[in-house]
């Protein structure tokens, strides 16, 4: 059974809503560290990230641009930039097996098939010199050994499924002939085509208007209901997160600074960064005025400050924040905040 300590807080505990009773989550990232060797020095992109995902569940990953959301996802997929990238510590357990200890050929069996990913840069993920139809068909031929004709038929089906108008006619078009949102939908269609157990969707809907976005999110929810696919949704869109997430982790400077069930985060954020994010959303009563924005600049990953990475920008900062790194304090059974002053943040007193 599972001898390792569960990620904190333990998401694997029985969930009354879903009736998940297993002790081993579908996917568990545990104390993951990722660094990149660059000419300027070592970039510490991920510094001890833990999160976990159960079947059918949607985990939203929020956070600062550059906080390590995509790098964490790349580590799960096993596609980090070699040779600069290094994983000095951590585990990524998929149905109990540590992916980081698997040999490359075993890993390739998982990648794309059992754990699939929609890349943030959907536009460059498609090869510009091949037609879109042939790229989708190629996937079916390689993974499922389909004939060319069957694979093409499946490709049309797939494009229909994500509402590409006139799919059959456009099979032989090249990626640049599709709009940004269409390419994004094609990537989503390809990712779910092989019925993965885990889908990592990195900013899957940035190029989509809200009506198509709603349809795509509904399609993904349907797949989740039918097959129990777990989804890690990396996004900046707090509206989408509010709509579909079960639980949320918030990242800052390569760490998780808050984790909680979706309703708790929006009602009462427990970390000053999360609070700042929620206050930055444009609302109609701020029209014509400056938007609230967290002041200062993101931390330098080449030279992380001691103490709390958010301290230089934090309205709640006290003297000890710049010297003692806050652990992920436990708040109740489903919640954590990496802020020494989470009580004050929760109360909404000062700051």
């Amino acid at each position: 059974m599972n001898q390792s300590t569960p990620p904190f807080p333990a998401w694997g505990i029985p969930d009354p809503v879903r009736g998940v009773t297993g002790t081993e989550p579908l996917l568990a990232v545990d104390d993951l560290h990722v660094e990149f060797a660059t000419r300027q020095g070592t970039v510490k992109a991920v510094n001890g990230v833990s999160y976990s995902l159960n079947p059918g569940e949607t985990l939203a990953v929020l956070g600062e641009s550059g906080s390590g959301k995509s790098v964490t996802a790349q580590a799960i997929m096993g596609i980090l930039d070699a040779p600069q990238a290094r994983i000095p510590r951590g585990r990524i357990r998929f149905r109990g097996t540590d992916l980081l200890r698997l040999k490359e050929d075993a890993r390739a069996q998982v990648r794309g098939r059992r754990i699939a990913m929609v890349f943030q840069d959907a536009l460059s993920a498609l090869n510009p010199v091949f037609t879109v139809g042939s790229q989708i068909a190629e996937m079916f031929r390689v993974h499922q050994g389909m004939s060319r004709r069957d694979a093409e038929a499946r490709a049309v089906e797939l494009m229909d499924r994500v509402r590409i108008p006139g799919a059959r006619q456009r099979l032989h078009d090249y990626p640049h002939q599709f709009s940004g949102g269409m390419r994004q939908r094609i990537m989503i269609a390809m990712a779910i085509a092989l019925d993965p157990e885990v889908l990592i969707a990195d900013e899957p809907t940035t190029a989509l208007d809200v009506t198509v976005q709603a349809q795509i999110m509904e399609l993904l929810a349907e797949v989740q209901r039918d097959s129990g696919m777990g989804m890690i949704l990396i996004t900046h869109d707090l509206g989408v997160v509010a709509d579909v997430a079960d639980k949320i982790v918030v990242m800052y400077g390569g760490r998780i600074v808050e984790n909680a069930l979706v309703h708790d985060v929006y009602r009462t954020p427990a970390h000053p960064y999360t609070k700042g994010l929620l206050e930055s959303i444009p609302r109609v009563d701020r029209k014509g005025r400056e938007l609230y924005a967290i002041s200062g600049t993101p931390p330098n990953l080449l030279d992380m400050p001691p103490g709390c990475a958010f301290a230089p920008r934090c309205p709640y900062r006290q003297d000890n924040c710049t010297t003692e790194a806050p652990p992920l304090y436990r708040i109740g059974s489903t919640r954590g905040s990496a802020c020494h002053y989470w009580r004050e943040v929760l109360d909404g007193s000062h700051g």
Partner: protein
Amino acid sequence: MAATGEAVLEVRDLVKHFPLTEGAVFRKQVGVIRAVDGISFDLRRGETLGIVGESGCGKSTLAKLLMGLERPTGGSVRVCGREIADAKGADLKRVRRTIQMVMQDPYTSLNPRMTVGDIIGEPYEIHPDAAPKGDRRRRVQALLELVGLNPDDVNRYPHQFSGGQRQRIGIARGLALQPQILVCDEPVSALDVSIQAQVINLLARLQRELGLAYVFIAHDLSVVRHISDRVGVMYLGKMIELGRDAEIYGQPAHPYTQALLSAAPVPDPDGRERRGRIVLQGDPPSPADPPSGCRFRTRCWKAQDICAQQEPLLQLRPGTWHESACHFAQVHDVMPSF
């Protein structure tokens, strides 16, 4: 922001059709994709026009036409009084200096082999008189700082930055020549909301200080509302509603606009199971074969016979103070939370 000045951008009956080809080896043309199909509007100095619409409706194509990056099939685009559609060589170069663009996609639009400093400074290579050589590095660093990046990053390469950071590199480059018009195609959708707020504040500040005019394409309706003086709603190559922000959001008259606003996700999970949305029936029609009459009729719950027979023009309609293109335009309050 009050925009009362002269029109810096005049767009008339703008059309762009792409050839639709068939066959993997011998490509023969079998029709056209009507990406932009007759669009007209003005943009005044210091004004922001927001553009929203369904994915694939022609927004990016419109942006490229405005920039002279695509040649129009028909119609005209005048930038500060000068026609861009048939400008060539030095002429085109001169017009381009007054209109710059921030691209939708920061990954493919940044050359991976160039340093960030070279990317942002590239416009100075194309327009050497814009900044003296000795001053360029300092300017590039100031631009980096302006968009919230570290000025010491000039020697790093695009792949060493996160998606959001790369988006800001694109914005910095767009500002390098201090243009009069900035066309922004999804400039903030890759950014977290706090940096997004910084960029929006930055764009607003530049507008106040320099009188910049923006064409601002985005899917985030609350961002568009915040930044825009007027908003245009596109559907399948057409502008179907155009008005001041308060009119579009408060009194939308076109059924598509109403459906769009009702689908906007609200950043509050409470009551998410009960939220009323106008769910559009059917799939978006192909721009290669748009419906007759009103292009929205195949998905519209109000459609009557006339909608298939006669194209509704973008004009003032009874009971509204802004233009819409629907035979049955009627103000309908869909989104109390906006």
